[in-house]
């Protein structure tokens, strides 16, 4: 169990940002999504957060989620979270996945498939097309329906009473399944005539994306939902 003091020791205000990245370089995309640019010299977490308009407590929470497997935020952290700040981060994450990570993965897959030179491997391209579409529509729904709802509630604007976060929770589909299948197919079942290097390269990207999406989904389910439920209750 990671205590608050452990996480503060690693990612707290007085820690150097460079040190944070050294602790876990997988936090680089997190910095990007928070609008914290690189080239920050000797800046501390506190200074960088102030510059980017991010609360240090949120920064620590994000770092913990992306560093420790199965990190579960405690009730205090959830209560302390700012819904608007969280939504902004989730929106940026969607952008990052849709506009950057997934298209790059697509390119790698295209090259891999071309190296196999078989009709079978072209099926992978079509499979990935479908996956991309599924992912985009999943994000679109959240960006256009769920997040505005939360923003309204958080800012005290009355909603029409039609939507609730419970509906989101129940309909929150699993976007990992197709990605898992793709990973298994490339890892286990693609014939070995395909280029090994391209294959490994694509797999690394798939594993990273899957890992990232898992944590993203966890934040929506374990932080956003309880947070909004409290707001809904307060509003009644």
């Amino acid at each position, binding site marked *: 169990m990671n205590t608050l003091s452990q996480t503060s020791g690693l990612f707290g205000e007085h820690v150097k940002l460079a040190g944070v990245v050294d602790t876990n370089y997988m936090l680089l995309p997190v910095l990007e999504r928070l609008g914290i640019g690189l080239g920050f010299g000797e800046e501390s977490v506190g200074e960088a957060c102030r510059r980017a308009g991010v609360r240090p407590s949120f920064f620590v929470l994000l770092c913990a989620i992306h560093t420790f497997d199965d990190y579960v935020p405690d009730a205090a952290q959830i209560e302390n979270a700012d819904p608007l700040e969280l939504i902004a981060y989730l929106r940026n994450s969607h952008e990052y996945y849709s506009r950057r990570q997934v298209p790059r993965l697509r390119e790698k897959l295209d090259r891999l498939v071309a190296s196999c030179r078989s009709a*079978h491997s072209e*099926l992978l391209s079509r499979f990935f097309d479908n996956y991309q579409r599924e992912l985009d529509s999943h994000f679109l729904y959240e960006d256009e329906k769920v997040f505005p709802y939360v923003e309204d509630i958080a800012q005290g604007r009355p909603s029409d009473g039609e939507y609730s976060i419970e509906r989101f929770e129940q309909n929150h589909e699993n976007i990992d399944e*197709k990605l*898992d*299948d793709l990973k*298994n*197919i490339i890892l*286990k*079942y693609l*014939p070995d005539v395909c280029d090994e290097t391209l294959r490994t390269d694509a797999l690394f990207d798939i594993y990273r994306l899957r890992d990232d999406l898992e944590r993203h989904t966890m934040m929506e389910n374990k932080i956003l939902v309880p947070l909004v439920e409290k707001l809904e209750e307060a509003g009644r």
Partner: protein
Amino acid sequence: MKGSARYRIAIVEPSEIVAEGLRHLLVTHGFDVVSIHDRVSAAAERMSRTTPQIVFVNPSLLDPEQRHTLRSALDLPQEALLVALVYGGFPDRLTAQFDEVVSVFEEPGAIARRLNAAMQSRESDETASAHAATDPRNDLSEREREILVAVARGYMNKEIADRHNISIHTVITHRKNITRKTGIKTVAGLTIYAIMNGLVDMNDVE
């Protein structure tokens, strides 16, 4: 009719009448009933000590918010067979977590046979996957390959059940086993797997 091994069974069922009836039938057919509970929470505590190989659970006891799977709530290993014990109609949604579904109206001998067959199939799967590292081809059984082909061709569970003269729950069980062995969950993924392994022709699928 005794099974070739005395499998250990736990029963989680709120009705004492049903639980006792089931216990009697299972013992008569050569099984070893190690514990009976009327609630999941009580059962979970005993499971680690009694280590049942088969667990009967009445789906009405499932956590309605489904925050935890039954398997994790009971802390059951993957090898343990999770069986839904049902009285009547039941939605797929509730039985999805189970490996098998048994109705109280089924003939006892048939239940015993199914349980033995399911356990033996699992045991041979385990030895099969232990050898899988040396066997480059898939280790799906003949029947599983047939079901996979049907899925890849776009047939629904009900159609597959009718065509093969088996129950829809058996089809679901086969599909779960296929997923368990290949690691592939979606129909689209299974289709690619089937094509790549020469089980289905690309043209059959579109």
